């Protein structure tokens, strides 16, 4: 098991390294850098910019060095917890981000909890009542959930909330708490506002999860050991929970790997629509203004979130299923 964890840790570190190169490459892709934009802006306002000042700024931000050097400065900074400098806000990235990262994590984590809590009972119901009206209805709802882009769902929900309650549901907390330190009241207020984005982001994931659980469980339910159990007089509920469900659960947990990137993606766009104080809206605006350190930090953070999440799910799977632990060793 320790070997397995070590192996996974090693892979994770490698993955993160490659991702950091990728992220750095992507944020360097747009032609020009922030300074060119900034200088053009100053010049369009009729201000003249002295060459010395440009050079000074370039040196200050390390933009005059080679790509590789810039990358290493950036990565070593990241490792030290120094996220770089946001050009747009003129502040260190750390100060700009504030508690956005924490709120993002809370949002994504609760969404995953929600997906599990909802898809579990529905999936079981659908599988045990195959081709009943309930099953058909639920799978249609599931398809609909898959087909509706979650940002549209957010818009519709906002629209109806606006119609019926007359209040804005945007935000993750009462306006009074914004910028304040964390307290019990603030946490409660966050909880109160959290459920709408959670439902919105979770819909498509839930739909997918229900379909998979249903398919897995259906496969198991037709096997002979179930018939044997039934013949021996096991109560239906106990029979279901004790054997087939446990078998069907395995892919369920393995699926976290697919689920996490999906949820993170969803939360970005839903946050933009509902203007949640998470990483999404700021990532968008920083990409639009080519504020590269800010954008890079967000991309890196979101990637870390998924990679670490997948690491945890791999470990969980290893704990659950010995075949996977040993399989990892055999593969090499």
């Amino acid at each position, binding site marked *: 098991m320790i070997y397995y964890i070590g192996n996974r840790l090693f*892979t994770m570190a*490698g*993955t993160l390294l*490659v*991702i950091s190169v*990728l*992220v750095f490459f*992507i*944020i360097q*892709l*747009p*032609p020009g850098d922030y300074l060119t934009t900034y200088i053009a802006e100053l010049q369009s306002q009729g201000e003249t910019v002295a060459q010395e000042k440009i050079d000074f700024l370039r040196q200050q931000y390390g933009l005059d060095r080679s790509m590789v050097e810039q990358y290493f400065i950036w990565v070593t900074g990241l490792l030290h917890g120094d996220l770089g400098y946001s050009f747009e806000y003129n502040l260190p990235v750390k100060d700009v981000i504030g508690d956005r990262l924490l709120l993002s994590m809370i949002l994504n984590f609760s969404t995953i909890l929600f997906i599990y809590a909802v898809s579990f009972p529905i999936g079981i119901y659908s599988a045990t009542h195959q081709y009943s009206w309930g099953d058909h209805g639920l799978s249609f709802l599931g*398809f*609909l959930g*898959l*087909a*509706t*882009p979650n*940002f*549209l769902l957010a*818009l*519709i929900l*906002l*629209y109806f909330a*606006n*119609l019926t309650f007359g209040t*804005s549901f*945007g935000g993750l907390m009462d306006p009074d708490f914004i910028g304040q330190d964390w307290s019990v009241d603030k946490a409660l207020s966050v909880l109160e506002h959290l459920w709408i984005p959670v439902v919105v982001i979770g819909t498509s994931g839930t739909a997918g999860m229900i379909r998979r659980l249903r398919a897995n469980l259906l496969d198991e339910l037709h096997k002979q050991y179930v018939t044997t159990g039934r013949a021996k007089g096991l109560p239906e509920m106990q029979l279901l929970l004790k054997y087939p469900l446990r078998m069907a659960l395995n892919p369920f947990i393995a699926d976290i*790997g*697919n689920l*996490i*990137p*999906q949820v*993170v*993606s*969803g939360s*970005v*766009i839903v946050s*933009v*629509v509902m203007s949640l104080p998470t990483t999404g809206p700021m*990532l*968008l605006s920083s*990409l*639009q203004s*080519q504020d590269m350190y800010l*954008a890079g930090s*967000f*991309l890196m953070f*979101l*990637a870390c*979130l*998924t*990679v670490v999440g*997948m690491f945890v799910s791999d470990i969980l799977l290893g704990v659950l299923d010995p075949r996977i632990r040993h399989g990892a060793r055999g593969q090499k």
Partner: protein
Amino acid sequence: MTDRLAHYVSDAPFDPNYDEEQETSGNRFHMASQWTIIWWRFRRHKIAMLALCLLIPSYLSIVVTEFLAPYNLHTRHTDFIYSPPQEVHFYHQGEFIGPFVYEHRMVLNMDTLKREYSENTDKPLPIRFFCSGDSYEFWGLIPGNLHLICPAEGGEMFLLGTDRLGRDMASRLLYGGRVSLTVGIVGITVSFVLGLFFGGLAGYLGGWVDYAVMRLIEIMRSLPELPLWLALSAALPVTWSPIAIYFGITIILGLLDWPGLARAVRSKLLALREEDYCVAAQLMGARPKRIIVRHLLPNFTSHLIASATLSIPSMILAETALSFLGLGLRPPVTSWGVLLSEAQNIEAVALYPWLLMPMLPVIIIVLGFNYMGDGLRDAVDPHE
């Protein structure tokens, strides 16, 4: 007949063509090609057939958009800004006169500065069919002005309302389909080519190539797609022409979609390359490319097509999301996502709910592809 034994010698003369006749007449199934069987099985799937019947007209419609749309993409009606959808009536003052709309009149409310529209029920404007209206260039080549439906002479007709510049939503929706529907197809082509290439390499060659490709796939799958799409499309130069942007976006969509496909190809190839006929081909000196393309891929083309069908909707949704956020396609290119970006803020949605109309085709098309892909997957499944 009944007193005859189970084993007997028939008195009838021997017919040497008996077996062939049996095969050609009585048993169609044994003579049918693989694709015919898949089609038969697919036909049994009622909902998938329904989806197919829905998707084919949609794709046909984008060929003749100019003819179907009552107005041009950019025709502006400055007197009818944010006009709500008009209702189609058939009876005017209790008398049947065919489909028509009532004239819309706009009054600017000077207190709220809101445009208020009212129907002038005295003046019916009958809808014309196969008529001449806005002149257009069919696919930018052939000039014409024939439309399927047009408003009455001297009147206007906005069946789905108008937008902020007074452009007809119904026409824009039809034109938007041209972009939104093809994005999925072009994107899946890119992803298909990449997936086949990398999956083929990894599966056939094995060894360190396989290892490298698998690590790459793992990394790609662990990245959240949307932020990456956002970052990549933000990197597309603003100076590009709309067509270049369109292809840029589809390539970006395809670039991030191939890992799933490559994985499927790899695992199939890993198993198939041990087959005897593959070894035979190798011994006869066939090169890897020929073996993969001619001998191995045809084994599971149908599966690949089914899984491709299932990933088209995610591409359509991705394009919609990107354009909605303003980082995808940009006007004057019009897709459903671009149309939806008008409905981005809650005020617009509350005042002009018809701006949300483009959602409907998005959802319908995505549902259609999902159901059709499901049907296809069931149809090609050999385990049945």
